[in-house]
């Protein structure tokens, strides 16, 4: 059915309504305006009134413009031809390559049957001790990078992308500054990673609706490649922009807001995206790493808060390094038993001592006399920050563990570390 409707009843925000029959919820439609042809999808039906959200925004849409329903939902092309390409939030090419319309697949498809998932067990090595040693990234994991504006999160993301051992990278950019987009493109091109990268980029100047489509496009493509047996890493930045776009649309749709104006289904909306991360039983895997900026460095803001409940841990990026507190990779337990037998205990002991160091710093700043113990902690904290936390440290996991023992031995007696004596005997540096 390709009937054309030429009377638009209302235009509110990015949503237009037309009177039509036989239309299905979620169907795609073509809207032809004076400035060209764009797409819209059906979001609500009420008797013969059909509400559609227009991807490119409703600016310049006239009540006399034509709407043609395509009788299928939003789709994206998927094939090896996507490698190295850049698309926008409607799936149109952003580079100079040809538009792709073969092998179309539905976006935002059904969720994976939990009984077809397997327990993730492969570590993704990054060479960053704060990740490898303290919060190991695991294949099929979904992890956000919580950050504030101004932190080098895109740089960190790019670095992880280049060093991670995966077959394919799908980058979804939402509300990116144009120079950030250029940064990603240039960095990945320079490192040669572009040949196995697909980008879906929405920049800050593009229409809002397209922003909300980027994760669906990126994840649909990523999922299909994972089904083909590829190990895919999907990078999303910045999910807060995505949520803000969702908020904007919910408000214009007169939905009752739940918390700071965000729609009540924010959790479900985010969850159905993040839950695409998967390790398929008998096929590949999909890992999601997503930047979420925290407005005002407030982790209780609805976006990071809901995200934290969905993801399997989080990295906090603050003052240019990954914070040891709060940062957590829940799946690390799946892999760090098989690395080295001191890995878990050492990691816990070092964090506990670093927490004690933070207390001491606080005491010191209040002008208290430092005891012997405090002095030891101060020395430890300094060595820990320089040897482990600094983002420029790039060493394999085993070396990081040895470095950990060496730092402990420089600062403490054996029984002050809280580690089991048996481990201490084995790994404590002999010369110390």
């Amino acid at each position, binding site marked *: 059915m390709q009937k054309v409707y030429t009377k638009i009843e209302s235009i509110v925000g990015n949503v237009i309504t037309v009177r039509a029959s*036989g239309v299905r919820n979620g169907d795609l439609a073509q809207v032809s305006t004076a400035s060209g042809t764009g797409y819209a999808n059906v979001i609500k*039906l009420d008797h013969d009134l059909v509400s559609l959200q227009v991807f490119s925004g409703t600016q310049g849409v006239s009540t006399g413009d034509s709407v043609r329903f395509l009788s299928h939902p939003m789709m994206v092309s998927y094939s090896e031809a996507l490698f190295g390409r850049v698309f926008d939030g409607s799936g149109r090419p952003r580079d100079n390559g040809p538009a792709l319309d073969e092998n179309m697949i539905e976006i935002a498809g059904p969720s994976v049957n939990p*009984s077809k998932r397997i327990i993730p067990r492969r570590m993704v090595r990054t060479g960053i001790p704060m990740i490898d040693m303290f919060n190991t990234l695991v294949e099929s994991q979904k992890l956000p990078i919580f950050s504030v504006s101004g932190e080098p999160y895109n740089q960190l993301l790019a670095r992880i992308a280049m060093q991670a051992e995966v077959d394919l990278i799908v980058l979804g950019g939402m509300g990116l500054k144009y120079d950030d987009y250029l940064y990603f493109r240039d960095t990945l091109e320079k490192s040669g990673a572009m040949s196995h990268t697909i980008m879906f980029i929405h920049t800050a100047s593009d229409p809002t609706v397209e922003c909300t489509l980027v994760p669906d496009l990126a994840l649909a493509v990523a999922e299909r490649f994972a089904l083909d047996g590829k190990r895919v890493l999907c990078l999303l930045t910045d999910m807060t922009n995505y949520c803000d776009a969702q908020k904007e649309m919910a408000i214009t749709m007169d939905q009752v807001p739940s918390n700071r104006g965000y729609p009540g*289904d924010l959790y479900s909306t985010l*969850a159905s995206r993040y*839950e695409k991360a998967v390790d398929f039983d008998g096929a590949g895997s999909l890992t999601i790493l997503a930047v979420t900026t925290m407005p005002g460095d407030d982790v209780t803001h609805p976006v990071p808060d809901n995200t*934290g409940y969905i993801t399997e841990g989080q990295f906090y990026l603050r003052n240019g390094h990954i914070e040891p507190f709060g940062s957590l990779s829940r799946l690390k337990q799946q892999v760090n*038993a098989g690395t080295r037998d001191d890995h878990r205990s050492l990691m816990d002991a070092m964090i506990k001592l670093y927490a004690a160091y933070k207390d001491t710093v606080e*005491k010191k700043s209040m002008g*208290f006399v430092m005891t012997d113990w405090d002095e030891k902690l101060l020395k430890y904290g300094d060595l820990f920050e320089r040897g482990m936390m600094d983002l420029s440290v790039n060493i394999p996991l085993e070396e990081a563990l040895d470095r950990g023992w060496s730092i402990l031995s420089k600062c403490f007696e054996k029984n002050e570390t809280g580690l089991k004596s048996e481990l201490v005997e084995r790994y404590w540096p002999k010369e110390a």
Partner: protein
Amino acid sequence: MEKNKGHVVAVNGNMVDVQFEGSITKNEVAYIHTGPSRLKSEVIRIKNDTASMQVYEMTGGVAVGDEVEFTGSLLSVELGPGLLSQVYDGLQNPLDDLARQCGYFLQRGVYLNAIPDRDWDFTPLAKAGDVLTAGDTLGTVPEGAFTHQIMVPFDLEGEWKVDSIVPAGVYNVRSEIAVLVNSKGVRKSLSMVFQWPVKKAIRCYAERLMPSEPMVTKIRIIDTFLPVAKGGTYCTPGPFGAGKTVLQHLTSRNADVDIVIIAACGERAGEVVEVLKEFPELIDPRTGRSLMERTIIICNTSSMPVAAREASVYTAATLAEYYRSMGLDVLLLADSTSRWAQAMREMSGRLEEIPGEEAFPAYLESRIAEFYERAGRVRLKDGRTASVTIGGTVSPAGGNFEEPVTQATLKVVGAFHGLSRERSDARKYPAIDPLDSWSKYRGILDGEKVAKAYGILEHGNEVSQMMKVVGEEGTSLEDYIIYQKGELLDSVYLQQNSFDPVDYAVPPQRQEESFGILYDILTSEFDLADKSEARSFFSQVRQAFLDWNGIAADDDRYGDYRDSLVSIYKAKVRS
């Protein structure tokens, strides 16, 4: 009964308005025919000739005019042998069978039989001529380690006479095993399977009892300080990453109950997978069989449709009550009740109801209370006692307990295990805040001693707060020792390493022994010259204690480690 029909007139998210003919029931199940699939939905509001229905599936592709078929029955689950070790979605769809039929993805509109189609070795207990009422036993079948009672369906009212019952033998689960007849001459043919509406509590017991027997979890901080009773309720609120789910997994593995039902409600699929893959490998020390054989998983993860999430906790509660009716102790773990509350909020928003606090509906509190009240220890009609214990996690926005779901939950539960961000950040697991949390139940150890130890913990905490202000040098040695004692209690007893093969589960006897020694240390006076000696003494004691904690009770060195710990602290005890 003539089935009612209707057609779709509006679609908004997962809510669909349907115009119907004839009469329909609120909360009745209906199917929307969209293309080749039938989408299950439930009537939640009726206005004139329009019914608003929540759809348990994604509504993409639904069009105005699509045909709707009403079933006349409320949302129900199937009860019968074969439920154990199954993995269901929120509507009791078996996920393994679904995977075999549909592959990797959850295809919508596919509903399979919940009870596996197989034969059971049936032994009749009732005989022709017996007069029975709902919940009475017709016979038994062996289900794994349990004797599964085949009962008179709970919805049969009044007295029924057994007209005929099959002799002992092997029968298919759905074949007829008995015929009952009542005084009006109504005949009922029964198989081993019957249906029960999920939102209605099963009340086939003689009376409810006080939950007085502790449910051992093998987690020290819970069993000793914050106990849970069989038939009781408890909640575990905590910010994300504080270890709610890990704690629930540990409980589901170690709790001394017969059956564990895990309702993964709107949480991560990965966590369910861990249970799915690990439990079949683990041995239940109580039965010597795989842990999976005592477990049912209701899994409606966050990416699955929201409305089914709302139903999933009721499905879980119904299965729990069913097994309780057989005289078993059941533990229901719901993770997370906040997601369930959010599902209610989403529906309420679509219905355009007047929102309450944080846009949650006004009936939030009564729904939460209703759910937790389905727990309870009961005496059955034959005199046996049985229980359903409910433990729910809460995921408060921003980790702030002053939000509607946490507050409504705290009003109705018997124990509160509040997880703190501070403790989890410092890797102090389980991150239950010992000072904020409370329990109204009796624990496994001497209450007086526990209270005294708790007092030292509180006192130690006060000293530590004070020390932040006046510094270590401004603290008296006496106070400093109290502080060290509190820290010791925390690090060797309250904290427990869930990844240590020994320490992850501490049976009651060992808790008693361990607490006995700890109590002796806490209440002893020590000869310590100054704070630095005190600190090194206590780190020595802590080290010895932790080393002992890591030694299995059947290890030859167990006694030596204990004795060495004792001699370390005894050496300094003031005579």
